[in-house]
């Protein structure tokens, strides 16, 4: 009986459905069961994500120290944001960090995936090795990279000293710290996205490559005309998840640089944390969080708009 009913439910699910019908649909035994099944998760989502999220919208217009009654503050939190050099610097650092890391992650992950997908000895080993950084905790990674990037005794600068007398200070220089973080991020994240690309690559039928070869396409032409378009849905997914997760990055900065030297690696989420929990300005921090949310929303929206142009099938 259920197959038939389900089909009936599906055909009835047009957007123009009247409220009364929607209510009836809500009451069908199948729907009730389904709602009950998602209820536990929904409660968790509502309590821990949706309600606090909505609260942040309200708080963004308030002055609140976390204890005394809130005071209506209009849009003053938002106007203050635009005069706040901490916010400006955090925002620009976050944008540079996110887009640079993401671009490099996508390129690196795709190339690595193609490499370990091809004829390579010890393929399984390389796949595991490249995935390894992803499952390692940031705390451990921080210690290792700090040692590698030590300006005077680190292996990296020991090596660079054979070429130049003044190798960069990496994490201890304002000019290089953000770049160093990008480098570490790419190293850590490329393996995970490589795995996604690998799955995508293995879904491409070899017939396409065969046909391309018969038409006289070389390696690069095959990549451009077969691999890239066939991978585009995976690439789309990778770019969106990568950008969103990097916008929210907090742990790497917190552990490795604490936002320094100076303010060179201060990021938005770090600033939000400092504003709310250290300074006790929950209203202002909420306004900051809302701006971050709107930026991520806008970027994701633009990506979905652009999707039709370059994501195939």
């Amino acid at each position, binding site marked *: 009986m259920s197959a038939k009913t389900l089909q009936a439910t599906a055909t009835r699910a047009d957007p123009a459905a009247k409220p009364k019908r929607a209510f009836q649909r809500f009451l069908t*035994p199948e729907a*009730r*069961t389904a709602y*009950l*099944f998602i*209820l*536990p*998760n929904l*409660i*968790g989502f509502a309590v821990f994500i949706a309600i606090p999220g909505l609260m942040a919208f309200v708080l963004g217009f308030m002055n609140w*120290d*976390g*204890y*005394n009654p809130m005071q209506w503050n209009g849009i003053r939190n938002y106007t203050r944001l635009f*005069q*706040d*050099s*901490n916010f400006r610097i955090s925002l620009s650092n976050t944008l540079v960090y996110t887009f640079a890391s993401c671009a490099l992650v996508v390129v690196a992950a795709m190339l690595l995936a193609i490499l370990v997908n091809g004829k390579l000895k010890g393929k399984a080993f390389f796949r595991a090795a490249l995935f390894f950084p992803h499952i390692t905790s940031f705390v451990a990674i921080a210690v290792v990279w*700090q040692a590698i*990037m*030590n*300006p*005077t*005794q*680190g292996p990296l600068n020991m090596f660079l000293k054979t070429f130049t007398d003044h190798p960069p*200070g*990496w*994490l*201890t*220089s*304002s000019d290089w710290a953000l770049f160093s973080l990008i480098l570490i991020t790419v190293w850590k994240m490329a393996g995970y996205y490589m795995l996604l690309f690998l799955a995508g690559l293995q879904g491409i039928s070899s017939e396409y490559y065969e046909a391309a070869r018969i038409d006289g396409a070389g390696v690069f032409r095959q990549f451009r005309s077969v691999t890239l378009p066939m991978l585009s849905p995976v690439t789309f997914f990778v770019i969106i998840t990568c950008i969103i997760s990097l916008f929210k990055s907090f742990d790497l900065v917190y552990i490795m640089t604490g*936002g*320094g*030297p*100076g*303010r060179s690696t201060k990021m938005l989420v770090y600033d939000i944390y*400092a504003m709310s*929990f*250290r*300074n*006790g300005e929950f209203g202002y921090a909420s306004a900051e969080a809302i701006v971050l949310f709107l930026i991520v929303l806008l970027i994701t929206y633009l990506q979905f708009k652009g999707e039709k142009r370059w994501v195939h099938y």
Partner: protein
Amino acid sequence: MSNWYKAAAGFALAAVALTGCGSDGNDNAAGSAGKNGAEPSAEQATIKFMFWSDSASQSMYEELKAKFEEQNPNIKVDFLTNDSNTYNEKLTVTLTGGGDVDAFAFKDMPTYYKLASTGRIVALDDEVSANADAFQAVSQYFDNVKIDGKLYGLPFRNDGWAVYYNKDLFDAAGVPYPDDDLTWDEYIELAQKMTKGEGQDKIWGSFMPNWAQTWYGEGMQQGASWYGDDLQPFLEGLEHRKALTDSGAQASLAENTATNAHYRTAFLTGKVAMVFTGTWFPGMLEQDKKDGKLNFEWGMTYSPHPEGAANKTSMTAVVVSGVNKNAKHQAEAIKWISFISGEEGQKIVAKYQTPASNADAVREVFKKNFTNDSVNLDAIFHLIPVPEREVRAGISQMDIILDEEGSRALLGEISPQQAIDNIKSRRDKEIAQ
């Protein structure tokens, strides 16, 4: 029907899992709340005291509690503890959420200021003036922690700053030990004199933590304020600090950041002649000696001071405890923290940490922690205290600003003068009055 049953079962399971997680950290609280509810009319009161846990504190508070409950049979003390790294957040959230904690220790001054200035802490001036004698030995720190003239916390621990030196290195170099009255110029000169060698064998004249107070302390010693117009004393401090690293007498900020260098490990290598840090350091060295990690003789003396500031002027960081404004048993809670800061409590504190009290009896107890006489008790107890931080609006922002701008100057990215100018302009813009 069976579908209904399954869904309901799933829901119940999830609910159990959720509530299970929620109550995990609150065993303590739930237990004592139950007890309270069971005997509402009895005179017995149970107060809840919160502190950050580390091995020394735990046994210290246990001992304090035992003595206190013995003297006050009607009051029972329950503990709530939290990991030290997230303690400030936990305390803030507990008080914000209306949690029924009665009294607590403050881990730092920014949190103390934040909670007191937003009206969550009881002002203790009445209590203190009513029992002035009992608090005499800790009263020298009251001014440092008053907010708008009101006292919200009772000092029970205090650490000043001092210089620790490796006697073996000074003997080997034929240089007399640092004397008991050093100016900053003399300290730098001495550090440069003690610096020798290259690479792995290098002997460093001086070591300091990367903290900003190691440079701005010189301004505090001169009585300057970050909120005043004349920031010249702080500039001198920054220039001195920079001179130490620029001349190679002290490892650079970049180097110390990159290696996560710590004054304790640095001193133990035996390659550092002098360390400038807090007076909790002798306790660490005593422990290291017991563990066989310390294999040289050491001595200590007063913090260096700027020309023009009195000798023995030292930054001090005092630790205070306070009482929740909404505490169920406010009077009992005040009694408990008064006990900790009173002479009997201080004698117990002195067994574990540097006490705030400078009473002779307390000092005697503290002295017993040390097996030799390297430790200079005068340099710990007889200081002219100036606060490490100014307890007022903007305290936590100022911490960050000083660290950010100061470290840029010490890394050589901007000049000390520029750093001070940046601090001034950021102070005016970022710290709302």
